[in-house]
């Protein structure tokens, strides 16, 4: 009887020690464990593919039963938005072309040089305690590397954390273990310039501008115009005061997630930075470590939704809302940006 109890106790102690040892090794970073996980994921892929086929009708039935009405409403809303977005898309395309042309002129590298790889989301978290991750169907064979950015058409959604030959795991940006170096950009007025007609508009920057024109009759009008669309100067007489709204880098910081459904935050923003609600958060292309970042600069990430000054600190409290819908991602793009490679 005593031997029996001793055997039980010894068995469970040995098992506990073995598991604690492997956890310690993994937490400290162990290439052998990483390789084993990678091989196991690839080896299990065919079984998972069979399971996907077999379970698809049941999964569809589940979603049909519990999310059909939400999907129908969302579909109607998206149709309306799509109609409205057509004109915005045309304007955006023109802006992108202008932006790329300007970047080329000043010799900056841009994301256009990196090859995007489209991928389908083929799985969510397996365990109840493995939140904030998803699996996509591209891997090392397509050039994907750990650390690369994953985006949708709306913006950044996550970072590659594990790569096998044919698959990769992505951690979403709301996960607290993901941090991204970002910059906050807002449109701010340039110092006002006062010129005299007839060549006043030659000094207008190639961005939206607010122009206040004072006529001799003392009537004033304020209009927002796009410089690219601006007509040649007319015969407006005497004085034109121009206040241009140009994209301004306000500060750089570190984007952090606080868990599913919670707003993201940007840390390390100086209290003197003039950040406002509605400013845009984009990737800075800089790395927190000595290694170069695999995130190209200027990927759109989020919009600033809350700015607070907190007494006792020298930083602003900045909350942001991701541009992409992180709860319903079906197709993504991996940005194959590698400044070294």
């Amino acid at each position, binding site marked *: 009887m005593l031997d029996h109890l001793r055997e039980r106790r010894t068995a469970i102690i040995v098992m506990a020690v073995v598991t*604690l040892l492997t956890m310690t090794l993994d*937490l400290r970073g162990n290439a052998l464990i990483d390789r084993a996980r990678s091989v196991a994921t690839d080896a299990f892929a065919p079984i*998972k593919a069979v399971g996907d086929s077999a379970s698809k009708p049941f999964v569809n039935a589940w979603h049909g039963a519990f999310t059909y009405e939400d999907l129908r409403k969302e579909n109607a809303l998206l149709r309306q938005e799509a109609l409205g977005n057509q004109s915005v898309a045309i304007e955006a395309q023109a802006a992108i072309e202008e932006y790329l042309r300007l970047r080329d002129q000043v010799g900056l590298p841009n994301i256009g040089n990196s090859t995007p790889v489209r991928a389908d989301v083929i799985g969510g978290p397996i*365990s*109840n305690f493995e939140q904030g991750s998803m699996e996509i169907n591209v891997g090392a064979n397509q050039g994907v590397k750990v650390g690369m950015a994953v985006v949708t058409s709306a913006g950044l959604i996550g970072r590659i954390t*594990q790569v096998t030959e044919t698959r990769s795991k992505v951690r979403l940006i709301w996960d607290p273990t993901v941090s991204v170096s970002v910059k906050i950009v807002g449109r701010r007025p340039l110092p006002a310039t006062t010129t005299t007609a007839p060549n006043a508009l030659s000094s207008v920057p190639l961005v939206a501008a607010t122009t206040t024109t004072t006529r001799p009759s003392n009537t004033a009008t304020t209009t927002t115009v796009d410089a690219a669309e601006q007509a040649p100067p007319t015969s407006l007489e005497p004085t034109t005061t121009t206040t241009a709204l140009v994209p301004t880098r306000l500060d750089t910081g570190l984007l952090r997630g606080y868990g599913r459904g919670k707003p993201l935050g940007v840390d390390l923003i100086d209290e003197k930075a003039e950040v406002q609600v509605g400013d845009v958060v984009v990737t800075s292309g800089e790395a927190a470590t000595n290694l170069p970042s695999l995130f190209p600069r200027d990927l759109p990430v989020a919009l600033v939704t809350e700015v607070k000054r907190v007494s006792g600190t020298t930083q602003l409290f900045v909350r942001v809302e991701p541009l992409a819908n992180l709860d319903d991602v079906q197709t993504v793009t991996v940005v194959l940006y590698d400044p070294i490679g």
Partner: protein
Amino acid sequence: MFTASPWLRLPLVLAVTLMFQTTLLAEVRPGGASVDLALLLAVCAGAAAGPVRGARVGLVIGFVLDLLLTKPIPFGLSALVFALAGYGVGLLPDALYEGRWTTRSLVIAAASGAAGVLYAVAATVFGVPNLTLTHIVAVIVVLAVSGFVLAPIFLRIMLWVLMAGDRVRA
């Protein structure tokens, strides 16, 4: 062939279990929590074969599941929890498993819920993020309910795997 050794039957059952867990059950998530069939296998292993074999089987199932998970869940966390779950359930008196099926199911349901609590505690200790109280409660409820419903099937499966149908707990 499969009567030769439990260690030949277990991989077959485990492969099928993980196939459903990584596909169907990864999508069907009532309240944001999914049914954990691997954990249920470990719990039922303890109920079917006693603490030592239950712990061994739980350890193996946990390590296999850990291979399919990613950081920040450390490799070995599921193995530790599943081994302890199999061991703990195996220590319960035989009388609990010899009554009506509802009693057996209730025991497995309670054990599954308790294993969920253990997993949450261990995950928190080892720095796994995103664990909110609401989510943990949802997980425990789903594990307990699924444990109650699936216990009769999974107990039979584990009896076949480990004892070739006859229950001899050790």
